[in-house]
């Protein structure tokens, strides 16, 4: 051992012993501190608890050696304690070692006697420390193994994917909680159980494939319907170092939501295709009629055909621009250009734009500004607001029979500005109310057959209102009329 690093505390009320020990030990390379009694020794020890050994006299004033030994052992159980005493008896020596001293040296002693005892003691201490370190390490490792196991268990329990481990004999040797949930038959069985008891030929088939083919680090994936859910079943082989396949790990991932999304997307695409095709087919049909010479040789007839085509082409163009807007909103590419705008002024603009159409149907279209034409300022996108109001007013005019009334009311209600478009039109049946904001939903009846529309207007309006953190409400009485109210937060 290297004495240079070790610190030794010498406690004795005799000046001669203290300084004698200091001299001997310093020469041997120890760092020595001295104390005159037990109290001072505890103070010194407390200041720098880095001592390897302490030489302790038994008879000292204030705090005696025996008691000091006990106290020091309490503070540092590994401390090497050696008693130095002029009154050595067997009794006191036994008492001292009982309290934790390693040995004792009777006074007077020679430097060699002192060093021999100290060196033996330090050697034993080193062995004891090493043994203790090994013991602690072993305990720590055991704890780690235990916690590793419980950690794996916890992960397997908490993982949302179902997991089965299947061995070469096609026994399920492990299943987690999710697998028990996914495969009702598996929940009632304790592992190990034969894979066949799951009565799922598709799983068995994939397992056979894994076991029969050349082993290799590959994953076999299958879609699997279990109950009302769809799962992606991924099975990977467990390959041993010798290259043999000893089993397989099967993971069941619930992809029901993804599947639904996929179906919804396909439905949307096919609806778009149909909605695009209808006006195109109608236009083509009219042009076909013109080209085939079946239209009477009359400018009025020809003009009629062209007008009808024009209306359909116009619908088609609106449909495409609304689709583009909706797609932009959906993909987050629609930028609102917010500024302080006067909502009353925008509502007035929308009413004026619809004036001609309303006039042609003798509909009384009026703007009723409850704020008495005072500006109502909101932080909003002017173009988007105009689109919202125009859409609602156009709808009201379209679905109101000739001679009816459409009233637009603008009012400031607390933190909101509300714009209500009320008509005396055909109204909306209760069962249709919840669908009117869906894409391509159009109310089909004898009365609506001549009303052109894309089925995207209200859907776009709702999205634009949402972008403004606003609200849209619809109230209606079939046969009597509807009110659409948009609320936009004020700046």
């Amino acid at each position: 051992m290297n004495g240079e690093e070790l610190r030794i505390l010498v406690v004795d009320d005799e000046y001669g012993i203290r300084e004698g020990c200091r001299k001997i030990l310093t020469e041997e390379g120890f760092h020595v501190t001295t104390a005159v009694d037990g109290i001072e020794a505890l103070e010194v020890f407390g200041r720098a608890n880095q001592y390897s050994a302490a030489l302790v006299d038994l008879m000292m004033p204030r705090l005696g050696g025996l008691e000091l030994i006990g106290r020091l052992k309490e503070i540092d159980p590994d401390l090497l304690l050696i008693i130095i005493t002029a009154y050595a008896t067997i009794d006191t020596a036994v008492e001292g070692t009982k309290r934790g001293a390693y040995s004792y040296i009777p006074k007077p002693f020679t430097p060699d006697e002192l060093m021999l005892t100290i060196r033996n003691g330090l050697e034993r201490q080193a062995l004891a420390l090493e043994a203790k370190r090994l013991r602690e390490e072993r305990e720590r490792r055991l704890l780690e193994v235990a916690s590793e196991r419980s950690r794996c268990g916890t992960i397997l329990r908490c993982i949302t994917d179902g997991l089965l481990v299947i061995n070469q004999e096609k026994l399920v040797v492990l299943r987690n909680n999710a697998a028990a949930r996914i495969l009702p038959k598996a929940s009632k069985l304790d592992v190990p159980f034969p894979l066949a008891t799951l009565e799922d030929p598709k799983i068995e088939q994939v397992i056979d494939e894994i076991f029969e083919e050349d082993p290799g680090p590959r994953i076999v994936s299958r879609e699997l319907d279990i109950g009302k859910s769809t799962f992606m079943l991924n099975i990977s082989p467990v390959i041993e170092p010798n290259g043999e396949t000893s089993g397989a790990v099967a993971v069941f991932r619930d992809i029901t939501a993804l599947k639904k999304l996929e179906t919804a997307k396909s439905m949307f695409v096919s609806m778009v295709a149909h909605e695009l095709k209808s006006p195109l087919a109608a236009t083509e049909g009219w042009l076909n009629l013109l080209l085939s010479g079946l239209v009477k040789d009359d400018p009025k007839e020809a003009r009629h055909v062209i007008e009808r085509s024009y209306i359909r082409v116009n619908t088609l163009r609106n449909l495409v621009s609304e689709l583009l807007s909706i797609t932009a909103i959906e993909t987050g590419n629609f930028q609102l250009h917010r500024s302080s705008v006067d909502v009353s002024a925008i509502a007035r603009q929308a009413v004026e734009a619809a004036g001609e159409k309303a006039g042609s149907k003798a509909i009384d279209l009026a703007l009723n500004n409850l704020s008495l034409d005072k500006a109502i300022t909101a932080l909003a996108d002017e173009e988007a607001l105009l689109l919202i109001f125009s859409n609602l007013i156009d709808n009201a005019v379209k679905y109101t029979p000739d001679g009816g009334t459409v009233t637009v009311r603008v009012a400031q209600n607390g933190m909101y500005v509300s714009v209500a478009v009320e008509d005396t039109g055909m109204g909306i049946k209760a069962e249709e109310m919840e669908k009117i904001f869906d894409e391509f939903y159009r109310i089909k009846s004898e009365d609506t057959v001549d009303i052109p529309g894309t089925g995207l207007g209200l859907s776009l309006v709702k999205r634009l209102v949402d972008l403004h953190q606003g609200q849209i409400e619809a109230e209606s009485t079939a046969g009597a009329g509807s009110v659409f109210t948009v609320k936009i937060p004020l700046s």
Partner: protein
Amino acid sequence: MRPSIMLVDDDRDFLEMNRGILEAQGFRVDCFTDADQAWERMKGRVPDLVITDLMMKSLDSGFSLARKIKSDPRYTDVPVIIVTAITSKLHFDFNPQSREELEVMGCQAYFDKPVSPDLLIAKVKELLS
């Protein structure tokens, strides 16, 4: 007496253009925008031929009209032509052309919109002869 044709479509443009085409050929044409109303009328006066759209109020309005006609002994001999803009295989996975396929649909002919006037006239005349 002029043969009568029942036209069913919720698209006014197709009703109008097909009526024009058929009336020019001397047929009497009755137009309906709703399959249920067309069915009601069947009971009063049986047409010589029915031309119907597929997707009207619901996805299969025209489809069920065709099947009702074919399964009712009073009308089972009335030829039905289906004209539709539905092309997506997601809705209906067919483009029936063989006699068997058309029979399953409850029709004698199936056209994609818009059907050319010549083709429509030829098919109507063929089915009425």
